[in-house]
């Protein structure tokens, strides 16, 4: 399958999802299950990732902040980079690896074992039953997890700044809140929602398009992870460019 047919197929799937969202026609039970497994069960790994991101950020920034005597601006620097860029992108990549890959494997297995056809034979629309709940759950989960992750990353950056650079937490947080704009938060939320939608559409598209038995499932998972990562970076560029 070449890139154009993949993009075209994913666009058609996105359209079918949107058609079923207005008005909402999807399985609420499946949505609740997905929200639990994708959101709640991803919380610990996302917090761990965010904590490390905050720590690394301060270690990397230390050299430059110290060189230019900008210790009082550490909070703003860490917050700016975390909220606008690193938080949404790194957490989306982590989410893609955990949830996107799992979703493709799950739907791919259902497809090659004819379970999806079984649903269609029961007059159950696979898009409404399988895809839309996963789409919504991924968008909501990743947005919420990114906000939590951003907060965790900033807390860990604040603690590390205090230990490494002797920047007390009051200085850290006051510089962050004095410079941070509502637009930065809006950008972060928008990006994470877009990334969630990308991961959802990709993982469902490749999952439902799986063929060739068990090896085919592996191929689909690989395609999902690679294409989601590429799409995340492309959309990150355009969203940063457009939304500032």
């Amino acid at each position, binding site marked *: 399958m070449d890139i154009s047919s993949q993009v075209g197929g994913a666009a058609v799937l996105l359209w079918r999802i949107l058609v079923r969202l207005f008005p909402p026609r999807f399985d609420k039970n499946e949505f609740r299950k997905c929200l639990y497994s994708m959101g709640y069960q991803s919380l610990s790994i996302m917090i761990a990732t965010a904590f490390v991101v905050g720590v690394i950020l301060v270690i990397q920034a230390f050299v430059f902040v110290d060189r230019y005597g900008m210790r009082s601006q550490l909070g703003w620097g860490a917050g700016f980079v975390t909220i606008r860029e690193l938080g949404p992108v790194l957490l989306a990549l982590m989410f893609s690896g955990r949830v996107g890959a799992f979703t493709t494997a799950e739907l791919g297995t259902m497809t090659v*074992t*004819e*379970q999806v*056809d*079984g649903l*269609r*034979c*029961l*007059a159950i629309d696979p898009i409404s039953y399988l895809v839309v709940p996963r789409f919504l759950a991924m968008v909501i989960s990743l947005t919420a997890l990114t906000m939590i992750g951003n907060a965790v990353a900033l807390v860990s950056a604040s603690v590390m700044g205090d230990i490494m650079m002797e920047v007390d937490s009051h200085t850290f947080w006051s510089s962050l809140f004095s410079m941070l704009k509502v637009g930065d938060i809006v950008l972060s939320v928008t990006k994470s929602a877009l990334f969630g939608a990308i991961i959802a559409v990709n993982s469902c598209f490749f999952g439902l398009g799986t063929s060739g038995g068990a090896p085919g499932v592996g191929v689909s998972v690989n395609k999902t992870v690679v294409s989601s990562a590429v799409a995340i970076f492309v959309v990150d560029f355009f969203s940063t460019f457009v939304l500032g």
Partner: protein
Amino acid sequence: MIDLLDIHVGYGGHKALDGLSLHVNDGVLLGIIGPGGCGKSTMCRVIAGLVQPDAGEVFVNRCNFRTCNRHELQSAQKDIGVQFQNDALFEHITVLENVEYPLKRLTDLRAGEIEAKAVETLAMVGLSGFEHRLPNRLSGGQRRRVALARACITRPGLLICDEPTAGLDPQTSRTILDMIAGIRYQTKCTVLVVSSDVVGLVSISNRIALVWSGKVIEEDSTTVFRQSERKEVQRFLDDARLPFAGWAWD
């Protein structure tokens, strides 16, 4: 009643069905035979509304699958039960929940009634006591029986069984085919069975269709089918090594 008229289906340059036509009357148990890759499963998927043909007309119970909208297709599919080649059981739920699933989705019955019907249907296929097992704890033959129970629990007007005996030992294979014949006898539904167990299939079918290179080249009552002089029929029956002497056809 099923009518397939000049059906063409292709997969990436390969023609799975090449001008296939078939007429099946209500209440018939049609055995479908043919060499591997000849289009038997694709034909079943077309009849179940799972594959849209590239050309030709598909009528199932007077609904034209080529021209009907999604809701009309879904409505028609509610009267079709399909037992898939790979069983297609939902692995994360129990045997009982698998069998209850169609009733939960397609009917307004209460939970108690659904469970009673599912237990009764599982008993019909000889799986009493297996209700709370997960499908991955069952043997191949038991999985087929669960799939059969799930396909027929709604008492569909049309039951399609795609290779229900594949990979099973002869005794289990015969048991499954006898169960299918029993279901048809009880429910009076139309049944299409694809199977490589030609002897077993012939013993339960009213009619036999031979699919060859994407076409139905012979379709007749079992007695007439046996006497066909078409060389493909004779070749296929010879390959199946049928015990013609003393063979009970009907």
